[in-house]
């Protein structure tokens, strides 16, 4: 299992530790790089319609498979050179051409089609970049329906972010209490919980999510839940191990000596002291969840067209790999960057929170 090495990260309960681990984190160049990537990703999610030059689902069957960085003129045919050729049908597309004769510079902050965002709270027609004039500029090219790939990638970013966040929320919300109670109480509770966790871990990697999706149905909503549920046994196992290390410390005994009941002690004193591995795992879990969800999208078990989910976009691009490799390449790069960002941050957090590793 990919996740097991994390279990070794342990919590150290020293006061005033926070500034030191933060300094250690910021001194690690890989951690800083990871945080920059994640920050960029968050900005893209927040400002999607402003960053993307075109609406994500706007089709244009005349401009399919346009390669990256090409501007396509929308003016009538006038026999000039460089006719735009559809690479699938290998025939010139009616009236479209790659126009070299007139240059339309790509400008920052242009007026484009209007958009609304945040449930209609923000409305504008300002876009980060674009072309003035009768030309469209496709930074990363277009897909099989002539949709701007860059705009779709930008609009699909929130899906990955949401899947990761929901997965962590389910994992922490159910897995952490489960593992903590199991480790802290021990005995029969622990035995039964561990058999359940063992069973769930018998479905390695993406298989548990696949089983859940096969049972409860495909689609983006179910994928988010499935990927989240698949993280429960990992959190449960991790937290149980950490709680076992902490539960015989003096402060737990002190709480018992003061007459505190077991479960309140667990939640007030033990769990706060095992937060470090949970934080590390959550960063790595973002990466795993995004990969799993993209995998399910790729298999056709997740998001459905026309949702701009990255895995699904990649799956569509697979069918045109030979004629338009960019359609499958860029969603893959987007996934790699985001996943790498969370993996780098997770690794660095582990080093920073537990220097003994």
């Amino acid at each position, binding site marked *: 299992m*990919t996740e097991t090495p994390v279990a070794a990260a342990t919590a150290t309960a020293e006061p005033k530790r926070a500034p030191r681990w933060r300094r250690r984190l910021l001194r690690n160049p890989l951690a800083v790089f990871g945080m920059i990537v994640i920050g960029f990703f968050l900005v893209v999610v927040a400002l999607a319609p402003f960053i993307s030059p075109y609406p994500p689902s706007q089709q244009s069957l005349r401009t399919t498979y346009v390669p990256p960085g090409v501007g396509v003129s929308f003016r009538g045919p006038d026999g000039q050179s460089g006719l735009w050729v559809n690479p699938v049908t290998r025939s010139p597309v009616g009236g479209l051409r790659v126009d070299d004769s007139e240059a339309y510079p790509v400008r920052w902050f242009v007026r484009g089609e209007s958009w609304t965002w945040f449930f209609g709270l923000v409305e504008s027609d300002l876009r980060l970049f674009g072309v003035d004039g009768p030309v469209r500029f496709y930074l990363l090219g277009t897909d099989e329906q002539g949709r701007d790939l860059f705009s779709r990638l930008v609009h699909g970013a929130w899906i990955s972010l949401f899947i990761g966040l929901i997965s962590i929320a389910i994992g922490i919300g159910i897995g952490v209490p489960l593992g903590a109670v199991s480790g802290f109480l021990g005995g029969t509770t622990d035995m039964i919980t561990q058999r359940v966790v063992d069973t769930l871990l*018998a*479905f390695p990697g993406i298989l548990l999510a696949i*089983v859940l999706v*096969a049972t409860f*149905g495909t689609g983006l909503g179910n994928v988010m839940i499935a990927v989240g549920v698949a993280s429960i046994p990992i959190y449960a196992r991790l937290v149980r191990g950490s709680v076992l290390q902490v539960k015989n410390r003096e402060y737990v005994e002190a709480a018992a000596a003061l007459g505190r009941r077991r479960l309140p002690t667990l939640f007030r004193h033990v769990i706060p002291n095992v937060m470090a591995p949970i934080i590390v795992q959550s960063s790595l879990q973002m990466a795993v969840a995004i990969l799993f969800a993209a995998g399910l999208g790729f298999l056709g078990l997740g998001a459905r067209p026309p949702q701009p989910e990255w895995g699904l976009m990649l799956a569509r691009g697979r069918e045109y*790999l030979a004629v338009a490799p960019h359609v499958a390449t860029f969603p*893959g790069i987007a996934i790699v960057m985001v996943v*790498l960002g969370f993996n780098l941050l997770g690794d660095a957090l582990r080093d920073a929170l537990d220097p003994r590793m």
Partner: protein
Amino acid sequence: MLQYTLRRVLIAIPSILGVMIIVFAMVRLAPGDPAQLLAGEFADAETIELIRERFGLNQSIPEQFLRFVGGVVQGDLGRSTRSNREVTADLAVYFPNTLELALGAIAVAILLGIPMGIIAALRPNTPVDLVVMLGALLGVSMPVFWFGLLAILIFSVELGWFPVAGRGTLRHLVLPAITLSASSLAIIARMTRSSMLEVLGQDFIRTARAKGLFGRGVVLKHALRNALVPVVTVVGLQFGALLAGAVITETVFTWPGIGSLLVQSILARDYPVVQGAVLLIAVSFIIVNLIVDLIYGYIDPRIRYD
């Protein structure tokens, strides 16, 4: 060792039982009538009744479960709603192909991962180390399907070295095996490196160096043997994980294995085959893990007395 073996085998049994409960529950929890699901979307009323009779779907849930377990033990998982073939017969055809792919992938992961880990550990915090570790990080961050598509694009479409898809000759195996191995390779390289670094810092290595041994002698003779003990576990666990990871790789390369069978069956709502494939993958994973535990207990006797 015998006691240890027995204990390990006993621990595996509740897991297998749990897996059967989950696979059994899949059809009962899915929206719709279980009889209809097991008979297929286009089955007529008569067939549905037949299925209901055969799987005892009128009986109580515990009775149904016992019947299900009885069927599994006898190798009876029902019939595919698409092809009407016995599910077990289908699994027997597809599973060896998945095994072949997983063996190829684990071979690639071991042959590249362990040397990479050793090289990185011998020169810690140098550019060589950084490149290996960043490569490993990239390996676990890359979606398998994207890596596979890039491999197809470069080595099949552009260069024409390997076939685009399918199974058959050794040349068919190369790209899928490398693709599937990517994340395992990365994990094995990282594990080898950290295990090697730990061993190289220990007293007996210093003793060996003090005796006048240096360079390759120390590394290969003394350090490697000790460093590989935890690596064996990781290799075993990875092999188990590869059986499940094959789901995506097989789909990318249209490899006729149990993973692509599973995906096609889910999409076609062919529940008997879905149940069979999930059961087979999970149980093989448990058995592989059991074998890994036993090997670990054999090569590191300290484990047995925990």
